[in-house]
């Protein structure tokens, strides 16, 4: 089953794999959760970009509005923990993705992110993932890490993994969820 893919083969494969996604547009900006994400670190436009990209990274998991809200909240929190230099890099990436002109450069000539379907966003992520430019690989991996950590760090998403905390600590762990300062 495994074989060495060329970059082009990967792009074709991702296109083919995304064929079944037609019609699923959950992550369009208008589908942002009604309840506003209380972001402390990310701007509204940055959250908008993340609301479009995060479900593409998680697909075929399809977060509902509440799950997307929790995910964006967790991403905002995780972003706040990052050192200033990393925040700056991620912030620049999210801002670039939001601007039509710069997005053209990142997307190999396609219009703007909000007009992308989910399959096009998946294609874009794979374009970055396998590109020969390290900068694009870094953009992909930065988003990948942020989204995967925020999704799988949430105990509400653990049943799909059948992952549980050790029995004596289940309730104890919840009690300890807010550490003391020091």
């Amino acid at each position, binding site marked *: 089953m*495994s074989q060495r*893919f060329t970059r082009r083969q*990967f792009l074709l494969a991702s296109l083919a794999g995304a064929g079944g996604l037609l019609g699923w547009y959950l992550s369009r900006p208008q589908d942002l959760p009604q309840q506003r994400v209380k972001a402390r670190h990310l701007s509204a436009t940055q959250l908008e970009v993340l609301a479009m990209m995060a479900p593409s990274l998680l697909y075929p998991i399809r977060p509902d509005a509440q799950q997307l809200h929790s995910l964006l909240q967790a991403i905002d929190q995780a972003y706040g923990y990052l*050192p200033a230099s990393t925040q700056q890099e991620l912030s620049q990436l999210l801002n670039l993705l939001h601007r039509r002109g710069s997005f053209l450069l990142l997307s190999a000539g396609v219009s703007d992110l909000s007009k992308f379907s989910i399959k096009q966003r998946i294609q874009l992520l794979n374009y970055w993932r*396998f590109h020969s430019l*390290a900068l694009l690989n870094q953009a992909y991996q930065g988003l990948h890490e942020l989204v995967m950590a925020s999704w799988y760090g949430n*105990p509400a998403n653990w049943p799909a993994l059948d*992952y549980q905390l050790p029995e004596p600590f289940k309730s104890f762990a919840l009690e300890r969820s807010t550490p003391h300062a020091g």
Partner: protein
Amino acid sequence: MLDDPIAKGLAAGWQHYSPESLPERWPEFDVVIIGSGAGGGISAKILSEAGLSVLIIESGRFRSSRDFNLQEAQAYPDLYQEAASRKTKDKGIGILQGHCVGGSTTVNWTTSIRTPNATLQHWQDQHGLSALSEQHLQPYFEEAEQLLNISPWQVPPNANNRALQQGCEQLGWSHQVISRNVKGCWDLGYCGMGCPTNAKQSMLTTCIPQALEHSAWLLSGYQVWTLEHKQGRVTGLTLKPTLASTSNNAPSFSLSAKHVVMAAGSINGPALMLRSKLPDPHQLIGKRTFLHPVLISGALMPFKVEGHKGAPQSVYSDQHLWPRQGLGYKLEVPPLHPILVATKLCGFGKLHQQLMQQFNRLQVCLALLRDGFDAHSQGGQVELRDDGSALLDYPFNDYFWDGARRALLSMAELQFAAGAEAVYPLHEQAGLCFSWPEAKTLIETLPMEALQTKVVSAHVMGGCPMGGDTQRSLVDDLGRYRHLENLSVIDGSILPTSLGANPQLTIYALALRASKALAQQLS
């Protein structure tokens, strides 16, 4: 409710300060120790027990077992450098390193292995460290093992480690039981998030409390930003608060000390030296920083592995550690928890989701490359960002990638020998392989490149090399800085190469030796 000795000690009056609570004035200490990990913790204990007045400065938080809730989402930002997102300059290597009182010993997986004799021999032959023979170091290893209750793990390995053992047995490869620094371990598997039962004999639960009992002071949440120096002596330290959420009104300030022990670890320690423009006539600061770069191979087993349960590391193999040519590597396994697995698994989409759904059948092998022993393996270079923070440039070369490819091959072969249904070498352009020949063909043709091949590290060493040659080393074998008379460096940054073994026990032994000599000198 479990006993919390840290909370008890604080209630009993330990001298602990933080950005929220600073003393009215600071006395002049005999020794200021920068960092509270393996080197700083041991030094604090030895020096305070010798009757010296000691201040330990730790840039991370002072947490204890009551804070450890077994959740990665809390532990990584709370206890790790850069919220566990630290990376090399080109982002080709992710680095896990502790950032809390106890340093990496608070979050490591308790693996305790003496420095391999071949490594000590290499240091004697190539780095002029004639004093550091196996025989000479033996009493220090024994003392550290007694102090931290280090002994071979007697409980049967969990299925993740057992697969490593069985693969080795099938292939006739050598393998050993790992010794661990634990006392009354519950065999939970959450060592990386801080031990919730205080079973881990880390610096947090042993030497730091012992030092505080001997009147040492501890300041957490402050980073030593520069060392002031004049006429061959350190004359002062400038400090800045580090905890963003609490530091808005906390002041920066300066301190002085008769003697300074740097134990801030590789990367941050050399960065402090660079910011401080310490005398360095041969331009060695930050160079030769080593990582034991780790390659990863995932496997799907036909049985439940549940790699999050049980002692994270209890078996290792040195079958490929000392090859005749090229980089050697040590084989171990990691604990498997959701964030760690989801972020390291390459790719996204259906395969990623399916593997996460098979979470409890995942077995994962690690190959730690033994860097620094060859002219082609010079490690990385610590630099400063514009804001003065530390950054490690660790370039790859063909020599590295040759070792990396052989490591992926060995792990796939081992996992199939252990009964894997499928193996997934962690590389962006790899997929699931369903037989050893298929995996071999794939791995032999994968383009070995940064950001395509997954490389991580949890062992940061070097950057302030110890040695016998004054032109090739910054400190002697007791950690004494060659160009400032009242500065010692006692941590993993003095290692002249990587080790070929998890570093904590080496650092404990060297720190016992160096801090005892320092105590004698200062007393």
